[in-house]
């Protein structure tokens, strides 16, 4: 009998041989689900010497037990692999409707090894899995891929997750797109998928997900749903979407420096420009708000530019879109920015990563290191949104100057030389979109993230200036957030909408109480918040060890990019705001101490790992010479 709350199976796919085999998810229950199971498999089976874009790399997709149930905010899919930028932890996450369908088709986690000789996609259907020819799909955008698979199955409810041309061409900023609009971005996960000749996974199923203790589960669901309704923002998100609510003109988010200006030369943008793309002013293009599976607080807009050169319509526009396609390249044309966002979805590019290398090229052009001769004739002047759109296409297809940029900002700066590395914004080798000088907890979490310069681990999400500017207790808060995010990713819960319940309050181990109650009553597993938090902490330590073993990272890699370390904010209400070096060192010491890691090296200790029953991890580190 399959376990309560789960699809029930982990599917292993040998792409080289075209062979599939299954095992029970029960084998991995210590890691609950989603990212937990993915990372444990990677830790044990991914060879240290494997190169990210070679067949030896392993590519995993996982959903958690809460996905596909009545549990609120539970649609998330975790994609984990070896990071194409850093060789360390590669991890990305998205919502949508694919995750629930994958469970209804009978699967919790998918593990891909090797490389298919020809393009294929995986078809999951009512408990069965099959590799199918994708030669007809290769070269198609993510939108056309979904259309074609649905037409082939004559079923409009098939859910598709996959790559566009960017992934096929192994562009480092390639992401995996679910349901045309939800991007699992960062870590080059799309490039890894492309390197395996795996175009997509399509799912359709109607198998039952049973409930261990129905009455208790429904009580937990109803309690969570009632709590959500006590937050006024829930109603606002449903009406105007996340961006409409959190990025209106005058909101603190615009001044918090989350959106670096002109490749991070500044952290504050001209108010007249903000007005043109702010959450409230972009409203005419926002025709509807759409929800991920089972979400009671839909937040993603359907955008429509009805006419003109940027005519386009589709789902998608997020907070970072106004960073990637507005502030970072100094573009204030909302229609061009909407087009850019939807184009990245079609091409399978992560807007966060892609815009970093594009903005870097704009700055190199400004400084004369690049000229029209290098850029295929494009004038990379700040505000030239047409050049941004052209570069996105070139990047995805590795065409001309796009190929020069396609391996990320660090690789591009190494090739270009001069002083261009000084403003190549990367962390541990991965392009990083986040502005980190004003919001201290956000910045510290971004820089110490095992996924390298990403905001979906320990970064503190607060829009309150009193909170985000302060160093007060930052290491502890980041540590708590890391554990909490692990719990969210193991169960399949959304960080953003879950933020309604947690962002302006301090995360403590008890924050996981309601998730533990949901997961425990659904699955019958003995999970309370203390046990759950411990597993979250273990998961973070697994990733830390993988970064040590595979990426060779230590304390020296937990520092901000040179620009953010040395240059203060130049204008606006937070002019002069900078990263205090002493505060940073102090915070690092405390952060490592809280983790039980060695403050001098930033590496794990046997004592710290054994406290978490991870002696096996310590043994691996000792064997690799990374632990005394």
């Amino acid at each position, binding site marked *: 009998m399959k376990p309560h709350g789960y699809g029930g199976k982990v599917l292993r796919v040998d792409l080289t041989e075209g062979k599939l085999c299954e095992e029970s998810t029960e084998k991995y229950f210590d890691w609950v689900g989603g990212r937990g199971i993915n990372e444990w498999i990677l830790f044990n089976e991914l060879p240290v010497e494997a190169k990210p874009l070679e067949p030896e790399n392993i590519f995993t997709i996982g959903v958690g037990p809460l996905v*596909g*149930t*009545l549990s609120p905010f539970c649609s998330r899919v975790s994609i984990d692999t070896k990071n194409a930028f850093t060789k360390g932890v590669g991890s990305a996450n998205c919502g949508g*409707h694919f995750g*629930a369908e994958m469970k*209804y088709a009978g699967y919790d986690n998918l593990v891909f090894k090797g490389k298919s000789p020809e393009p294929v996609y995986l078809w999951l259907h009512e408990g069965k899995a099959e590799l199918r020819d994708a030669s007809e799909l290769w070269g198609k955008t993510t*939108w056309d891929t*979904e259309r074609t698979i649905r037409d082939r199955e004559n079923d*409009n*409810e098939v859910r598709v997750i996959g790559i566009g041309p960017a992934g096929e061409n192994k562009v480092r900023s390639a992401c995996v797109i679910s*349901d*045309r609009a939800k991007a699992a971005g960062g870590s080059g996960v799309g490039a890894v998928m492309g390197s395996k000749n795996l175009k997509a996974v399509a799912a359709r*199923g*109607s*198998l*039952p*997900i*049973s*409930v261990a203790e*129905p*009455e208790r589960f*429904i009580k937990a669901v109803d309690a969570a*749903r009632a709590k959500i309704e006590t937050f006024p923002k829930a109603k606002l998100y*449903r009406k105007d979407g996340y961006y409409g609510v959190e990025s209106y003109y005058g909101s603190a988010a615009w001044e918090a420096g989350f959106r670096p200006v002109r490749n991070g030369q500044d952290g504050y943008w001209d108010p007249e420009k903000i007005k043109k793309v702010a959450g409230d002013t972009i409203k005419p293009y926002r*025709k*509807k*708000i*759409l*929800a*991920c*599976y*089972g*979400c*009671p*607080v*839909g937040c993603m807009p*359907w955008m429509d530019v009805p006419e003109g050169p940027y005519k386009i*319509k589709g*789902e998608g526009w997020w907070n970072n879109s106004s960073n990637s396609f507005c502030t970072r390249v100094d573009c204030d044309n909302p229609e061009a920015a909407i087009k850019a966002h939807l184009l990245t979805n079609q091409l399978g590019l992560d807007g966060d990563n892609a815009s970093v290398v594009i903005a870097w090229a704009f700055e190199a052009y400004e400084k004369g290191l690049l000229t029209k001769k290098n850029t295929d004739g494009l004038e990379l002047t700040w505000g030239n949104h047409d050049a941004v759109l052209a570069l996105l296409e070139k990047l995805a297809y590795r065409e001309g100057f796009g190929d020069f940029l396609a391996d990320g900002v660090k690789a591009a700066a190494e090739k270009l030389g001069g002083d261009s590395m000084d403003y190549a914004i990367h962390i541990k080798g991965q392009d990083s979109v986040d502005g980190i000088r004003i919001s201290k907890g956000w910045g510290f979490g971004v820089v110490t993230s095992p996924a390298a310069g990403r905001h979906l681990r320990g970064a503190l999400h607060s829009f309150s200036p009193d909170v985000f500017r302060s160093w007060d207790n930052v290491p502890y808060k980041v540590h708590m957030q890391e554990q909490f995010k692990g719990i969210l990713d193991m169960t399949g819960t959304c960080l953003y909408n879950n933020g309604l319940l947690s962002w302006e309050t301090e995360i403590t181990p008890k924050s996981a109480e309601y998730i533990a109650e949901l997961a425990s009553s659904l699955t019958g597993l003995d999970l309370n918040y203390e046990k759950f938090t411990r597993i979250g902490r273990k998961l973070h330590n697994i990733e830390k060890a993988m970064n040590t073993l595979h990426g060779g990272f230590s304390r020296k890699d937990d520092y901000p990019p040179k620009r953010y370390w040395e240059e203060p904010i130049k204008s606006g209400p937070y002019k002069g705001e900078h990263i205090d070096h002493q505060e940073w060192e102090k915070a690092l010491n405390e952060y490592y101490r809280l983790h039980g890691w060695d403050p001098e090296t930033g590496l794990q200790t046997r004592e710290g790992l054994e406290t978490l029953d991870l002696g096996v991890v310590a043994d691996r580190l000792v064997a690799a010479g990374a632990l005394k």
Partner: protein
Amino acid sequence: MILLSPTKCQGCRICEAACGFHHTGHKAFEPSKSSTHISRDNDTAVINMSIDSTCDLCAGEEIPLCVKYCAYGARGVRR
């Protein structure tokens, strides 16, 4: 009868999960048992809602579960 407002629906499909839960006697989430179906055209964002003849207006439940769990006011009931 169950009243449907497709323009209010944001396409989360929690009604399908809730409906299947009712029809399994609160034992499981099983889409094939759902009496209601939501589909979305990804080229236009137009959402279609439907209910088939297996709907029993959630006999035995205080209110139909699809109505209870819809957060968007897209469903109502006239019993």
